[in-house]
């Protein structure tokens, strides 16, 4: 049964911001019709929007004039697309019409959308939080950006499909790996996070919260239970299930005794890798690094597309070494190095390489070589 009433008036910019925050979690294809919908709750001078895919729930409130309070659900993507195309500054009226549809009116535009009863909309429970702490949006963004590129997309290793976050030695540590590379970033442990057991935040949740806080400068409150995580940011609340699995013992993957040290200008290196990789085979994207005294030669030999070479001056004084890497993985890592210099700690052609940002001791990366 659809509520027979609800009528609100809301400014386009408020509506689009709120819808923009929630609609992304709605899956394009879903077998449960109501999951395509966003729930609108109008009450007083506040309108709340809720969207869910059963794993993540995003809720956002915004100012609006409620003429008739009520709750209803309407197709999220359609509503968002309509509002997006309405002119800037428009005042939008949303109401349940006599036809039991959502009537959207703005200026001369009139739309009606089908509705589904709000009573059927799934609600995610959120309780039993054991750890509560606060991070600045900038700090949380940093933890995510430095690690998310290494999240695995392989569904068979589902426990790698997210960022592993835990308290470690006075730090809050984030780790992601797909078995080919590993990225680690940490922050000083915030109050309330001590003893935080390892949790795995799913990739989609990572993307959603990152979008939500993008460019923001306020604080994010995090609440964590053994199965869920909840973020509060401004008027938005994101609740998500955590991945139920055991993250591998990543510390044994981080090389401890790589003694061949290579210091390079990160930008120059990244540009050179990008250039030679132009002709690398699409499948392997392998780039060969040949190191001799203070010289790094990058080479790509592709029997189909030709060869590429580039020589760089570097700091390297260990014995000569040849080692290959996937160009994309090298670029992913160099892309996360903020300082001028990157340091690579190498061992042999088949041993994992450790990469550090010379200016940022709180991050590290591990790359598995390719044989070339």
């Amino acid at each position, binding site marked *: 049964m659809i509520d027979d009433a609800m009528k609100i008036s809301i400014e386009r910019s408020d509506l689009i911001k709120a819808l923009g925050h929630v609609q992304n979690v709605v899956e394009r294809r879903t077998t449960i019709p109501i999951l395509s919908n966003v729930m609108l709750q109008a009450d007083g001078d506040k309108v709340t929007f809720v969207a869910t895919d059963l794993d993540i729930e995003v809720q956002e409130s915004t100012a609006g004039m409620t003429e008739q309070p009520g709750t209803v659900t309407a197709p999220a993507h359609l509503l968002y697309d309509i509002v997006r195309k309405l002119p800037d500054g428009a005042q939008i009226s949303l109401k349940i019409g006599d036809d039991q549809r959502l009537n959207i009116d703005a200026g001369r535009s009139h739309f009606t959308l089908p509705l589904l009863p709000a009573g059927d909309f799934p609600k995610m429970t959120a309780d039993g939080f054991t750890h509560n702490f606060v991070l600045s949006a900038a700090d949380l963004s940093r933890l995510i950006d430095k690690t998310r590129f290494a999240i695995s997309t392989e569904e*068979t290793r589902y426990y790698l499909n997210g960022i592993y976050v835990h308290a470690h030695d006075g730090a809050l540590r984030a780790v992601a790996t797909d*078995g*080919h*590379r590993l990225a680690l970033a940490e922050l000083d442990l915030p109050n309330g996070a001590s003893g935080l057991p390892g949790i795995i935040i799913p990739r989609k949740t990572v993307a959603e919260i990152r979008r939500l806080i993008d460019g923001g400068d306020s604080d994010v409150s995090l609440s964590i239970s053994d199965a869920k995580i909840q973020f509060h940011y401004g008027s938005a609340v994101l609740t998500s299930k955590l991945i139920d699995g055991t993250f591998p013992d990543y510390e044994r*993957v981080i090389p401890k005794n790589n003694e061949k040290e290579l210091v390079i200008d990160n930008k120059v290196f990244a540009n050179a890798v990008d250039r030679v990789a132009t002709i690398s085979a699409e*499948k*392997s994207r392998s780039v060969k690094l040949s190191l001799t005294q203070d010289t790094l030669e990058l080479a790509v030999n592709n029997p189909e597309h030709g060869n590429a070479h580039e020589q760089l001056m570097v700091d390297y004084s260990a014995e000569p070494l040849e080692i290959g890497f996937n160009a994309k993985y090298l670029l992913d890592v160099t892309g996360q190095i903020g300082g001028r210099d990157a340091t690579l700690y190498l061992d042999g052609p*088949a041993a994992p390489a450790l990469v550090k940002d010379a200016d940022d001791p709180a991050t590290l990366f591990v790359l598995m*070589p390719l*044989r070339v």
Partner: protein
Amino acid sequence: MGPERPNSENSELTRLCRDCGLALNGPAACPSCGGRRHITHPELGGLSIAHVDCDAFFCSVEKRDNPALKHKPVVVGGGQRGVVAAACYKARLYGIHSAMPMFKAYKACPGLVVIRGDHSKYSREGRRIKNIMRDLTPLVESLSIDEAFLDLTGTERLHGRSPAQSLIALQNRVLEEVGVTVSIGLSYNKFLAKTASDLDKPYGFALLGRADALDFLAAKPVEFIYGIGPSFARKLNKQGIMTINDVRKRSDREMAQQFGDLGLHLARLARAEDNRRVTPQSERKSISAETTFDQDIADVQLLKDRLWQVCVKASDHAKRLDMAGRVVTLKLKTKQFETLTRRRTLMEPAQLADRLFRSLEPLLEAEANGRKFRLIGAGFSSLSAHSYDGGGDLLDPKAAKRGQAERASDEVRAKFGHSAVVTGRELRRYHVKKEKKELE
């Protein structure tokens, strides 16, 4: 050299001796060999696309090697639970056909001779036949171990005889040198050639010309067309399309809208149009192995043992071909004959059984939820030449060591035979076998 180019040089040729291929003028016996069987067709000289298919190939090879079997019903296939891979013509009289479950074959014909089969022998003999084909034309497109398309367009001058005559010579030469019979379909495109080769089996020679193909096809049911399986046929039948003529009544657009690309393809075939070329050496696309269990298996550990077995088989094959695959595929068939395939793309091409197995193991775990399976298979695709055992995994640092161990075992096996080195998993299987024997 378009496949449909007519051959004008021999367009007056309409009658041949079935036995020696001599061109004849009248219904009298062949003046050369005395044969009384003739092939007559108004387009005999103008057709040059052939489909050559060995008759009950595996069984024919077995009967050749063991003349005592000559008049017995023979099938090649496996065990209590396998399927019939090939059935001789005698066995077919009992209703036995290939892909029939073995238990049904036994039931249909209690005196059935079942041979496990020696695939390396069959592929050797198959290669010999293909080489004889290549003496006629370089355009030989293998479809399987025992059948191929041949494009003989433009070979008249080379051989001094029409394609039909060359094919009769081929038939005779294969029987003489390899000792098995082949059936030939000759037409002006692949679809009709393939259709024709089935019309006069065994040791047959059938033609479909431009003038008779359309009428010939009209009343045939849609599943007569090679490639239209029972499920697609059911879909067509539901829409009232029972015969090939029914297909012709629909426009290409209708067929494409209702049935997609396959529908459009079918619409063209129904008009006897087929522009596909005979392309030699179509590249190998995958390397795989599979096995059907004697009894359905639900237990994940037992399934893994069997998976290991097929991984070793597929990997051995890849090693022989010196190829590696970047995509690995797990195939399962449920008790209800539902086939599942699950695939994964690897970072780097793999050839080792260890990598194949470990890549497929989690896929198997996801599917083995108590269901009973009757078959398991493993394979590589997206193939490339093998260069090295890559695929380093940070989280599996022992992979390199295991890879070296597998290579070392392979070397030992090459010298002392397969059982010189046996993994624990295989050993478990041997034990099961032994126990079973003891119980019996």
